[in-house]
């Protein structure tokens, strides 16, 4: 089946999601925004997006996932910012989105909804998938086929790391997909990027993970698994699905996911200056005791 004029078929990891808009011009701008992640695959879910115009000022929260309510097949994010329903058997979802959520940087908040769509489809395909796959706040760099993930909250330098690593392939500077396959971890691009515009769509085996912060010099520090888990789990995107409100279950899955990574992938804290020399620290990390 061909792709409609009002359709943006978006590839998020292994999931294909068709967004359909009433306005074809607006749809074209969405396609352009996600141009490296457009797909011709058969959609796992079709989402009819109704944009709701409004006169009132709306305060956009930094997170809409925790304030979601669910009633049967209906969901409501942050008191009506996004409302809708989903029929997984028919692979259809209809949403009403307040216009303010689709403007400029607020799109990042709308993308939280798309991430929850991703988890929903993943869980439906195979519940084990979600235990082995998560969205993570981080800048991922592929160098000589090895994946390096620099993770940290806003303002810690993910986009700076991306700019300083332009000699290599930048998979994403904001949100990446980390998944476990055959006992190894991989890091993968996602459509949901930050300020760095030249990222590429790809994936790499995850060779090392760094919790980043700005410093007065470049320092790589070994940290305990407990410290790693306590800090890293904050960077894992809440893994609930659209019609679930089982927070405890999701939090435990997130903690187990982080613990699993720590058992396989070397992890460090990286304090760095805004220059490329932090890569020297990484090249010498095997020498750390």
């Amino acid at each position, binding site marked *: 089946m061909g792709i409609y004029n009002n359709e943006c078929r978006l590839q998020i990891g292994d999931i294909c999601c068709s967004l359909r808009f009433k306005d074809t011009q607006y749809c074209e701008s969405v396609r352009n925004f996600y141009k490296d992640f457009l797909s011709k695959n058969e959609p796992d879910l079709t989402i009819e997006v109704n944009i709701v115009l409004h006169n009132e000022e709306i305060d956009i929260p930094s997170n809409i996932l925790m304030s979601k309510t669910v009633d049967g097949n209906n969901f409501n994010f942050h008191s009506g910012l996004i409302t809708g329903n989903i029929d997984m058997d028919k692979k259809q979802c209809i949403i009403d989105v307040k216009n303010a959520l689709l403007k400029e940087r607020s799109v990042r908040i709308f993308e939280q909804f798309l991430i929850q769509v991703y988890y929903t489809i993943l869980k439906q395909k195979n519940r084990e998938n979600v235990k082995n796959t998560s969205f993570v706040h981080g800048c991922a760099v592929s160098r000589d086929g090895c994946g390096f993930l620099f993770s940290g909250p806003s303002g810690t330098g993910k986009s700076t790391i991306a700019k300083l690593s332009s000699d290599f392939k930048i998979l994403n500077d904001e949100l990446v997909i980390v998944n476990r396959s055959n006992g190894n971890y991989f890091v993968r691009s996602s459509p949901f990027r930050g300020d760095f515009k030249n990222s590429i769509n790809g994936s790499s085996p995850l060779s090392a993970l760094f919790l980043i912060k700005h410093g007065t010099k470049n320092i790589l520090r070994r940290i305990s698994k407990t410290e790693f888990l306590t800090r890293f*789990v904050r960077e894992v995107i*809440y893994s609930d699905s659209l019609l679930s409100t089982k927070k405890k279950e999701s939090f*435990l899955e997130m903690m187990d996911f982080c613990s699993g990574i720590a058992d396989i992938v070397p992890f460090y804290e990286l304090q760095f200056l805004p220059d490329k020399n932090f890569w020297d620290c990484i090249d010498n990390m095997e020498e750390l005791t």
Partner: protein
Amino acid sequence: MISEKNHLKKSQDLVWRVINGEIVIMTSDGREIHNLNRVGSAIWELSDGTKNVNEIVSLICERFNVPFETAHSDVVEFGSQLVDKKLLEIA
């Protein structure tokens, strides 16, 4: 501050995991994450609602081979902190 007769129990709606003998706790809204050291983890583990503070102190003495006064001070101080943070409740 908790007293010796208080029974301590874990607050509801928390999730936790034991990592290398230490407890990592996440609050139900996901906003707070706490990492307890080994003594704190032991106090947490023993706070099941059936033991009072003095009984927990005695078990800490046995487990870590420390004098009663030291264990008492640790349990009262640390237990009070966990109650203040709403990780433990007085049963």
